[in-house]
């Protein structure tokens, strides 16, 4: 059995329905990709044009980053799909563990240097 694994397959083993689903999935991927590019451009515009004041630009960009992160994780890396419980659990624990560490470091590091 294992000896045949290296030969190419002649025909797709997927059913019509599965192929349709894959195509739909592809459309979603492309759309979300385009949307993320759009968000990136927005972020650039926010700083480059200097029309928006800094006090607003920073939270705005952070907000965009959060949206990007969710799109990236859920649409690009398939966390929204079925049977992705474990990857979800890992990414979420990563976020939960690193956020307080990062916030603490940002708040603490200015205080004492040596």
């Amino acid at each position, binding site marked *: 059995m294992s000896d045949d*694994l290296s030969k190419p397959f002649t025909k797709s083993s997927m059913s019509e329905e599965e192929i349709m689903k894959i195509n739909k999935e592809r459309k979603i991927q492309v759309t979300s990709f385009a949307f993320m590019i759009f968000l990136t451009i927005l972020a650039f515009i926010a700083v480059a044009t200097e029309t928006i004041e800094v006090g607003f630009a920073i939270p705005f960009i952070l907000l965009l980053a959060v949206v990007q992160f969710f799109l990236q994780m859920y649409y690009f890396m398939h966390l929204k799909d079925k049977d992705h419980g474990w990857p979800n659990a890992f990414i979420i624990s990563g976020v939960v563990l690193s956020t307080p560490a990062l916030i603490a470091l940002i708040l603490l590091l200015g205080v*004492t240097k040596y």
Partner: protein
Amino acid sequence: MATATATKDKSVLWDWLTTVDHKKLAVLYLIAGTLFFVKAGMMALFMRIQLMSAENDFLTGQTFNELITMHGTIMLFLAATPLIFAFMNFVIPLQIGARDVAFPFVNALGFWIFFFGGLLLSVSWFFGGGPDAGWTAYVPLSSGEYADLGLDFYVLGLQVSGIGTLVSAINFIVTIINMRAPGMTMMRMPLFCWTGLVVSILIVFAFTPLAAGLALLMLDRIFGGQFFIPDMGGNAVLWQHIFWIFGHPEVYILVLPAFGIISEVIPAFSRKRLFGYTAMVFATLVIAFLGFMVWVHHMFTVGLGPITNSVFAIATMGIAVPTGIKIFNWLFTMWGGKITFNTAMLCASSFVPTFVLGGVTGVMLAMVPVDYLYHDTYFVVAHFHYIIIGGIVLGLLAGTYYWYPKMFGHKLNEKLGILMFWLFYIGFHMTFFIQHILGLIGMPRRVYTYLEGQGMETMNLVSSIGSFVMGAAILVLVINVVYSAFNSERITVNDPWDARTLEWSTPTPIPEYNFAQTPQVRSLDPWFYEKVHGDGTMKPAEPMTDIHMPNGSILPFVIGLGLFTWGFGMVMMNMENTIVPPFLVIGTGVILTFGSMLIRSIKEDHGYHIPLEQVKKIEKEVS
């Protein structure tokens, strides 16, 4: 190509160098870990000789610093971690009813990378002396200005061995999530598997900051970076943060598998199921989570301010709650059980009170105002040795005596075992209990001598004598291993302890495919369930067929060697005059490493099959 004899026509050495079998890798981990353990133990004895009397000059201060650094680094990274991995490797696939780990090749890779990383750290002795800035390598002590070549070996050796640890941890996660036998739900997994899973997750989240920190320190030391040099706008405290964000989870990485071993041994020899299984799993998860939220308790005296210190002090004390849950569950497991006090059980049950002592001093240290007194004294040394020796080492010893018959086909001698236990236990308390008091009267840690007439002579002498008793105990263990190998009765039954979990349903010795048919799991403690409610055999979950096995490979060894060469080349960049230019060595290492990866990627290797008749033959032989 599908021949069952694929492993038979190899020489013994080649077989061990190329093996991808989790049981053989476990033995390799066990041997490597023991060697490093003995090496670091000798260093400890040297240090105790030096401290035996006031103003002793057995060692110079410089040698003492090197010994203290290497002792700590080796014990944590190269002894405790691989010994834990040895048991995880051997036991976890068996306990979840799998034929091997998810990626046998990666498993071998993890071992060899770890091993060569350890070697890289160890060769520092031949190039002007070991690292000397403590296992924590605080800057500026560890910066290019103050520390020599030894620290480059520290940085690169740990970087390489850390990659091995990370790789193995990811492999364990995938194995535990995907390779469980039918019916082995998460909440039916033995506690050792649970702690193995949680620890692997901790490794993924904790060793990555360490790798980043080491990379920064390497940039500082070898490439003239300024991350940690305050004069140039760097930040010395940053290193402490990064190190302890890794360092505190690391101490739990070591102790949680010991918890797991204890949770296997205590029910087996109390003849009762583990009390409060769900609470135990929950407590493990809570400990893992809180372990990441407390790193500042190592930095209370840095001066981060009262609010920061209070927050982290409270978080630290919080860990005592889930730990307490575990302690009581072990006590209630033993309560009313039919307890057999053999060596494994002696180690496991005495683990509980010693660990409590270490936990209590931990909570004492977590109180910020008094930590200003305790910090950097022998009190801290006593605290973590109570946890590391009284916890982790006793757990590992319990695991050794418990799983030895499955691993090597015979038990360890009980008389010698009990002698070892008492020597070890008495020696341990003699060495470390008195160090609490030494710390309280103000003896600083990591200082190579002390003055006469400060009331420290007697206590230090007692401590040193204790350490020799402990050394004698380890000697008895070594004698026991050799003695039992020749004189102990061979085990032919599956289950010499009448235990509860799946690994005891396999024949001894275990065939290389573990289970001829994947077992069907019907309850927690599946093997015990079948013995009581079934006919004493595991129900198969699949018909008997050919068994697909992975081929051995030398590539993991070569990749490890490549990383070693690469790392050594990097260290050479700081050497005064080298015979060959460093770039040549780095290049060789890079080619070896990536060349092997390339070969692995383009050469197809689908493994081989053990044909059905062969499986039947082997099964008849072992039963």
